[in-house]
């Protein structure tokens, strides 16, 4: 499959079924089920205080085009060029001290190449906190560009992420438009 490039038809063209399938069916199929990937963290991960930690995702809820690779579990590497609609969530554990938690998405691990960030704090310092559904659009080249989620906290000691089925860390991206 490739990003559809609709055909320009010419007069007196009598398209065979194969061409109709290629031009009409395949485009409709793409539009009805554009490439997407959703991965989830199922193993808690330690977040050291004051350290930006790249999250790993161990479970692929859907990944028909191998955007995600379990041997390099932090990355989503879209295999088609285009604009992508994405969001991430991060489940943060309780802290007894400190109060700021933040998460962000980066493209190609660039220091300033950040596409969305959410800062938050729990209602009390002893409660878990989920940073949920932080959305963004991003342009990806379909070959080498990849996305990751980072998280940080200022509790003064290490804190684990939460993977209890209610508060989770997850990462979603779906092809949205051609470049």
């Amino acid at each position, binding site marked *: 499959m490739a990003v559809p490039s*609709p*055909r*320009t038809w*010419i*007069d007196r063209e009598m398209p065979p079924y194969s061409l109709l399938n*290629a031009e009409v069916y395949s*485009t409709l199929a793409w539009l009805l089920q554009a490439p997407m990937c959703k991965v989830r963290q199922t193993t808690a991960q330690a977040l050291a205080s004051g350290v930006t930690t790249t999250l790993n995702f161990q479970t692929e809820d859907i990944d028909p085009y191998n955007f995600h690779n379990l041997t390099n579990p932090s990355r989503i590497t879209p295999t088609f060029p285009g604009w992508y609609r994405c969001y991430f969530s991060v489940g943060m554990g309780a802290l007894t001290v400190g109060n700021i938690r933040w998460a962000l998405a980066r493209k190609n691990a660039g220091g300033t190449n950040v596409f*969305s960030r959410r800062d938050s704090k729990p209602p009390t310092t002893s409660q878990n906190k989920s940073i949920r559904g932080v959305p963004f*659009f991003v342009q990806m080249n379909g070959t080498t560009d990849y996305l990751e989620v980072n998280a940080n906290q200022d509790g003064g000691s290490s804190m684990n992420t939460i993977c209890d089925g209610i508060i989770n860390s997850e990462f979603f991206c779906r092809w949205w438009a*051609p470049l």
Partner: protein
Amino acid sequence: MVSGSDTGAGTEGQSVALPGAFTQIPSPRVWSNGDDLSAGQFNKEWRDAFLWLLRKTSPAFMGHNIDATTLTIGAAIPIKVEDLKQGNLTHAVNDSKVYVWETGWYYAMVGMGFLASGATGTAFGAELMVNGALNATNDTVRVAGNGVGIQLLTDVYLTAGDYVEIAATGSWTGTATGSAGQELWPQLNLYWGSK
């Protein structure tokens, strides 16, 4: 795809000029027996509709600010950088207004960021305005001494000629400043989604 593309190549290899800009909402044809299946019809009914549905030609806008911006609650923020502008909408660089010229439901995302210093308060948020009136907001808590980013997602029905803007909102006093950094800069993404 087997052959052909939006560059204008047909099966016989002729170069075919693309007819105009594909900026109108598709209106699918109801076919009848004996219809002439001309290239013009194919291109209009299939290619142009597909290009629209693929979001290659439908209205889309992505813009952001690239430098620190003074933020005032409810005041429209100029959008200085156009990351993507296509289809039947208009925006002038440094203007706050994005005008749409195709009626329909639009998928909108607003990003807003606040630097660590400056305004004091609790809730800091993002706001979408339509024709100068508040349409939707979302806010979050900022911890004193830290910057904060917030996003707002909504679907909004817009009529041809409407304009949208973004603003900062919340319950804070003093001077708030948006960041020059990607993670916190004010931004607007707007995509035509549905009739």
